C-alpha cells in the first residue's frame, strides 16, 4: 500500500490537540444526553476526511486497553413474549480476547478469541468451535468490534457512524455477505468514551441487546482471572 505523504507541522499539532481535546469534550458532554442517535449514520470510508473525524473516538476506545464491565443481555426471541434476560461480567484484553461470564440465569462462560469460541458450563465442561466456522462466525465477529482496532474494522465491516452531541452510534455491517445476512449489523452505541449498548441479530428470529454497566478500563487481570476467564493454553 502506498504511504501517505507526511502532514504539515501545523496540521500535526492540530491533530494532536484534537486527539487530547475531543475525548475530553465527548466525556464532558456525555451526561447531558441520555439517548444515542436512533438512526444509522452515513458510511465512513477508511482514510477519508469523514473517517478522520471519528478516528479520535476509535483511538480513545481502543486505548482503554483491558477492560472489565458488568452487562445485561436481553435476548428477543420471536418465540417468546418477553426477552430472556441474562446477566454477567465482560472482560476484554485486546490482544487475548473477549470473555463473557454469564452469572444469571446460570453460570456459563463464553470466550471469543482468534482461535474461535470456547463455551464452558458451570461443571467445567468445555466445547470449542473453531474460528472460520459458521457458528463461530456469528460471535467471533464481535471481537474486532470490541477491540476498536481501526484497521481490522475497516477490513471486515462497512462502518456507519452517527453522533448526537456526546452520544454516538456505530453500525458495523460485515463485508462477508453470508455473515451480513445472518448478523445484519452490529450496532454499538455509547456516550463519551464509554460503550453503552451492543446489539445484533443472530437470525430473523432473535435480536440480542447487550446493555453495558459499570466499566473499569486499564485493568490488569490476575493470573487466576486469566486462567478462569480466558483461554491461556496454546
Amino acid at each position, binding site marked *: 500500500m502506498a504511504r501517505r505523504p507526511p502532514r504539515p507541522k501545523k496540521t500535526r499539532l492540530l491533530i494532536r490537540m484534537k486527539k487530547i481535546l475531543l475525548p475530553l469534550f465527548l466525556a464532558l458532554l456525555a451526561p447531558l444526553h441520555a439517548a444515542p442517535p436512533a438512526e444509522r449514520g452515513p458510511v465512513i470510508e477508511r482514510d477519508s476526511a469523514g473517517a478522520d473525524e471519528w478516528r479520535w473516538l476509535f483511538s480513545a476506545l481502543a486505548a482503554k486497553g483491558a477492560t472489565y464491565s458488568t452487562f445485561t443481555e436481553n*435476548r428477543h*426471541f*420471536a*418465540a*417468546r*413474549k*418477553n426477552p*430472556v434476560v*441474562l446477566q454477567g461480567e465482560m472482560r476484554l484484553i485486546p490482544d487475548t480476547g473477549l470473555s*463473557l461470564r*454469564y452469572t444469571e*440465569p*446460570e453460570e*456459563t462462560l*463464553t470466550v471469543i478469541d482468534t*482461535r*474461535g469460541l470456547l*463455551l464452558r458450563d458451570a*461443571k467445567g*465442561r468445555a*466445547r*470449542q*468451535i*473453531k474460528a*472460520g*466456522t*459458521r*457458528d463461530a462466525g*456469528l*460471535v467471533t465477529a464481535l471481537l474486532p468490534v470490541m477491540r476498536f482496532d481501526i484497521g481490522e474494522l475497516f477490513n471486515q465491516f462497512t462502518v456507519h457512524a452517527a453522533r448526537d452531541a456526546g452520544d454516538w452510534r456505530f453500525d458495523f455491517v460485515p463485508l462477508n455477505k453470508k455473515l451480513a445476512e445472518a448478523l445484519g449489523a452490529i450496532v454499538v452505541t455509547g456516550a463519551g468514551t464509554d460503550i453503552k449498548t451492543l446489539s445484533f441479530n*443472530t*437470525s*430473523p*428470529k*432473535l435480536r*440480542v441487546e447487550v446493555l453495558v454497566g459499570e466499566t473499569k478500563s486499564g485493568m490488569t487481570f490476575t493470573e487466576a482471572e486469566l486462567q478462569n476467564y480466558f483461554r491461556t493454553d496454546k
Partner: protein
Amino acid sequence: MNFLSKTPARLFLLVSALAGAAWLASLDYSKKISTSVLDLIPATERAPELAVIRALADEKQARVALFALRVPGGDDNRDRATAAFIGSLSASGAFSEVEAAADTASRNALARQIFEQRFELLLPGWLAKNESSDPAALAEKTAASLERFMGKPEALAFADLLPHDPLLLLPSLVEKVQSLDAGSAVVPGDTALIWTLTREKPLAEAGQKPVFDAVDAALEAAKKIAPDATLRWTAISRFAAESKRSIMHELIFGTLLTLLAVLGVAAICLPRIAGTLNLAPVILGALLGACVAVTLCFERVHVLVFVLGLMLAGVSIDYGFYLYLQPRKIPGEPYSAKVRRLMKPLLGSALTTVLGFSLLLFSDLPLIRQLGVFVSTGLLCALVTAVLWFAQIKDPFMQARAFAGIQARPGKTARRAAIAILALGVLVALAGPWRLHWRDSTLDLQPRLPQLTRDAAELRAFFGDTASRTIYLTRGENIATTRAALEQFNAWHEAQFPGAATASPGYALPLQADYDALPARLEELRSFPDALRVALDRHGFNASEFEPFFNAWKNFTPARSYDQAVSALASSLRGQVALLMSDAPGASFLITAADHPAPAVEPPAGLSTVSLNQIESLDKLFGRYRVSALRLSAIGLGLVGLSMWLIYGVKRGTLIFTTPVGSCLFAFGVLGLCGVTLNLFHLLGAFLGVCLSHNYAIFTAENDARKEQPPPSIRLSALSTAASFGVLACSSIPVVSALGVTVALIVLSALVVVELKRAAKPSAATCN
C-alpha cells in the same frame, strides 16, 4: 553311485540349479509376493481389531488423502490457488471426492438430513428417556427445558430452529457431537486444507501412480497462481509406494552388501581370492534352495521373508568354511573320508538348526512359518551344496591365513582375565534380562519413513486427529447391533473416563428397541401437542410460533423399517462424515471420538469396540503371537538341547548347550541394560542365534575332544554370520533390524565365550 565324486556331484548341482532357476523364472511375482501387512497375519485370525482392519482396507477409509496447501500472500491469493488445486484434482479422474476442509457443505447436508428425519431418528430416544411421563407432564417438562435452553449461549445458534424443534432434539445432538468438530491443532492462516478420496485402492498400482501424477499437476496449477505455493500431503498410497520402494532397495543393496560382507570376511582370512570364490556357490545354493522351497510351499510369500532371508548368506557359508578349511587328518586324506569324519558335527549343527526352525512351521503367523521353511531348507541346501561343490573341485582344502587361527598365549594372567570377563558376562546375563520390556506393533513391520510419518501426524492433527483424542471403532453384524454395542461402550467409557466428552454419528441413530416402540408411544401421546401449547404459553412463549413443529408432529407416521430409516441417513452422507459410519450388513461400524489421549485400557472384547491406536499397532494381537512364538522357541530349544544330549551325552551335551544359551542370555542382558524395547523379532533372532551359535560350541568341543587346535573356520563362520546379520541390523525396517542386532550380538558373544572358555581352562596350555 558315489555322489562325492566329481561327475555325479557336478551333474547333480547343475540339474538342481537349472530346475530351481526354471521354477523361479516361471513365477508370477505380482501374485506370489505380497507387501501388505495384512498378509503377515493368518487369514483365519478372528481378533476384532483385525476384522476391522480387513474391512477398512477395502473401504473408503483407506482411500483418504489429506492435503495442506500453503499459499503465502493473502487470503485472496490462497483461495484462488486452492480453487485451482481442487479443480485440477477433481478433473484428473484419480479422485472421486475433493473438498476444501473449510467447506461445510457435507456437514450442512448431514445436518439437513438429520433435521428432515428428526422424528424417525431422534424422537425414539427422547421418548424412551421420558417413558414414564404422561402427556401433560411431558409437555410441562419440555416447555421448562426450552425456557432454560434459551438462556444458554448455544441458543443464539438455534433461534431459527426452535419453532421446528421445541423438544430440542437437534440442539441436544449437536451438543453431544460438537467435539468431533474441534481439532486442537492450529492451522496457519496461509494454509488451506483439502480432503480427498482417491478413486482406486491405495495398495493397487492404479491407486498410486495416477494419484501422484494428479497431485503434481494440481500443484502446478496452484503455482501458476501462487508460485510460492508449497504442498504437504498424506495418503496410504504414499506410504505403500515408499515402503515398497524402500524394501526393494533393501533387497537389492542388502543382497549385494551381505555378499560383499561375507565374502569380504572370507577374503581377509583366506590367502587366495579364487579360493574365496569357492564359497560363493554354497551361499547361492542356499538362497536358491530357500527361494524355491518357500515359493513352492506357500501360495503367497511376504517380501519380508526375502529381506530377512539375506541372513542365509552369512549362515550358509559356515558349511563351506567347515569343509574347506578343515585340515586333512593325514596327508592325502581323500575328500570322502574327510566328509565322513566331519559328518557328525556337520549334521549335528545343521540338523539342530533345521529342527529348531522346523518348529516355526507350527507358528500362527504366516511370516514365521515362511521364514521357518526358508531358513530350514536354505541350510539343508547349503550343506548339500557345500558337500557336493567341494567334491567336484580339484583341491577341496585351503589353509586360512595364520592370524585367523592365532591363539592367546596361555598363562595365569590370561586365565584370570578370561574368568573375570566370563563372570562379568554372567552378571549381565543374570541381571539384564529383568529390565527387558516387550512391545509389538505392525508399524515396526514396515520401513521407517520419518518424513512421511511426521507429515502425516501433522496433517491429521490439522484435520482434528490429535494425540489428545482417542478414536474408537464399534462394529457389528448390522447397524442395529452396532448401535446397541455403542450404547454399551458409552456406559463403559463413562465409567472409565467420567466426564470425558465423546462424539459419534451413532448418537443420531436410535436403538432398535426404541424405534420399534415409537408407534405405540406416539399413540399414548396423542394429547401431547395440545398440552404442549398450554405449557408453552404458561412459560412465556408465543405458542403460535411453534406451528411448524405441531404440523410436523401431526403429519409424522413411522412407516419405514429401522434399517430403511438408518439407510436414508447413511446414503446421504458425503465427504469426511461418510467415513464415520457404515450400515453395510456384515461390516457395520460407528466411529466415536473421545476427548482424552489413547489410554492403556482397551474396551472389553464384549463391547465390539477397539481403539484406533490398537488398530494401527495391533500390539495386543502381536503380543499374543509373541507368546505363541516364545512357546515354540522354548520347545525348539528343548529339542535342540535333547539332541545335544543324544549326540554327545548328558555332560558334554550340557556343556555345549551352555554356550549358545549363555550367549543368548547375555545378549538379552545387554539389550535390557540399554533399555531397548524388544519385540517378536528379537525373540526369533534369539532363537536363530542360539541355533547358529551351537555350531561353534559343537566344533570347538569336537576339536577339544581330539586335543586339536580349534579350526579357524569357527571364527570365520562367526564373523561372516555376524557380518550378514550386521547388514540386517542396519535395515530401515525395525523388525529386520531387531533380528539382525539380536543374532549378531548372540553370535559374537558365543564366539567370545568359546574363546574365553578355552583361555579359562587350566588345560588350555596342553592344547598348544
